[in-house]
């Protein structure tokens, strides 16, 4: 129907208007269509990325144009124990949180893959931690981790009588580190679960039926059907998850701001503290740039490490 109305409309506009003809000229149209997106990305993404690398080699501060100082910033970082701490915690944070998110998220996806009433409602509310602004849920966690009025301490001390004193969640380094990791896992589970659920639903039930006829156990069906079939999606979701966990900023900044005693700084929060709050733009940029090798390595590892198995799987099947 829309086609017929269009053709009559098009005939009316058939007059040789040079503007209309220009916009129907394909190369011009392609340039016009791509211009807004490419323009925005060039000015606010590619250029700053290059500028950031350049800044890392200068001693720029806020209000003063810096001069080229070569590798000085990086040499300084290598001797800076705070930077090493941040690297250490970023790796630990990413490692444990990614493992936790994927183990629990995969479990949740498998649970949601069953049939039960109100499934779509449940699927919708499970995504809430992912929708709500991270800083705002982080504030809720900050309140949950309060040294005096923590609800978890209350449960353990006054209700269950498992402990005699309140837990000091954020007062000392290791408890603070694990509290942040727990909050990160909490936030990441829904995304992993819903993404993996999409993958689970694409696996044909006939594969399981065939395996069951061949006498495969539940574990074998998971190990030789579910897991290999999920590999491509796992690779993509894990790449994203690692990149955005490693460069996380909001949770740490909202809950501990790097404390106690700078023990929970991630590279991103350290870069903010030095670069924006401290005004040392050059050094902050160097810290931010020092994340890039880790990110490239993690991306290559998770993407190719997991995707190669997919190819092998594909070859042996063909």
């Amino acid at each position, binding site marked *: 129907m*829309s*086609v017929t109305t*269009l053709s009559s409309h*098009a005939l009316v*506009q058939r007059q040789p208007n040079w503007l*209309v003809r220009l*916009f*129907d000229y*394909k190369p011009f*149209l*392609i340039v016009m*269509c791509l211009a*807004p*997106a*490419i323009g*925005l*990305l060039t000015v*606010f993404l*590619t250029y700053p*990325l290059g500028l950031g690398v350049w*800044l890392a080699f200068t001693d720029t501060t806020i209000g003063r144009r810096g001069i080229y100082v070569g590798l000085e910033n990086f040499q300084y970082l290598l001797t800076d124990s705070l930077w090493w701490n941040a690297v250490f915690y970023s790796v630990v944070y990413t490692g444990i949180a990614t493992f936790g998110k994927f183990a629990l998220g*995969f479990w949740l996806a*498998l*649970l949601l*893959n*069953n049939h*039960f009433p109100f499934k779509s409602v449940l699927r919708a*509310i499970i995504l809430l*931690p992912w*929708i709500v*602004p*991270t*800083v*705002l*849920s982080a*504030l*809720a966690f900050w*309140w949950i981790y*309060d040294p005096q009025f923590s*609800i978890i301490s209350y449960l353990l001390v006054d209700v269950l009588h498992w402990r005699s004193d309140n837990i000091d969640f954020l007062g000392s380094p290791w408890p603070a580190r694990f509290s942040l990791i727990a909050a990160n896992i*909490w936030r990441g589970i*829904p995304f992993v679960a819903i993404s993996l659920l*999409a993958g689970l*639903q*694409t696996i044909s039930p006939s594969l399981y039926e065939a395996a069951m006829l061949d006498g495969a156990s*539940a*574990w074998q*069906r*998971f*190990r030789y059907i579910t897991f290999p079939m999920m590999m491509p*999606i796992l690779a993509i*979701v894990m790449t994203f998850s690692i990149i955005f966990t490693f*460069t996380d*900023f*909001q949770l740490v*900044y909202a809950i501990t701001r790097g404390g106690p005693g700078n023990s929970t700084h991630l*590279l991103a929060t350290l*870069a*903010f503290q030095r670069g924006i709050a401290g005004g040392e733009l050059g050094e902050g*940029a160097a810290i931010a740039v020092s994340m890039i090798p880790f990110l490239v390595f993690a991306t290559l590892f998770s993407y190719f490490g997991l995707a190669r198995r997919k190819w092998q799987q594909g070859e042996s099947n063909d």
Partner: protein
Amino acid sequence: MTDTVAQAAVADAKAAPDTMAWDSGLRRLMMIYLPLGCFVLILLFPFYWMAITSFKPNAELMNYKEHNPFWISSPTLAHIKHLLFNTAYPHWLWTTMLVAIGSTTLSLIASTLAAYAIERLRFRGSPYVGLGIYLAYLVPPSILFIPLATVVVQFGLFDSPLALILVYPTFLVPFCTWLLIGYFKSIPYELEECALVDGATRLQILRRITLPLAVPGLISAGIFSFTLSWNEFIYALAFIQSGANKTVPVAILTELVTGDVYQWGALMAGSLLGSLPVAIFYSLFVDYYVSSLTGAVKE
């Protein structure tokens, strides 16, 4: 851990034929409903705690001995009233709304045109442009915020919400373009060919055929953009200085957290009110959201 899970997930199918009905029911309860209940409880508890704290009077907040902390004995609107009338909270909400709507509109226009050019006006190198835009999504804001701050200062946009409207598309455009390319792919090309044969111009085709058919894709891209820009934190923290121009997440953290004694009631009320718009917006379009999230992953 996943071992037991896998068994749990497929257990019911196996258990059904060779065990009695009540046994399989019990097993289903233990293996599916119990863990599922725990997940929902843990995932939702912080929101319950946030909500209940916002309506508790201060006396109850700090006294667990005489009041059950899981419930409110005398609910109060004092915290919300304080927030709305003694702070700039309504203004922060307005700024956040403005920034979210502005950047969503901008990125929807840019990414619709880009996705149309890449997917439908096939040209030499269009896959590479698509790949380039996709790779832009992998550049995290944590790496960009320092140089971007200097760029924003150069443009004279420091401390202006316009800076956020212009900068947010850097992470919105890649995602929306990616999503819309997938969506345009699902629209039969024959429809456009028919229109071309009938003498329609390319822009008419885009406006009258492709866009109306892509409305569900546009809606999900819009929801994603809106929630992502509402939630954005690091750019808003770095580029906005004056209290009045801050967005809700930044303002709550920097303006409401004052002194050593935190006003938990007001903080939680602020978090609750700041979460509500996205939660409501999301609940209206939840099906689009879930399907596009899963669709984007399948791509």
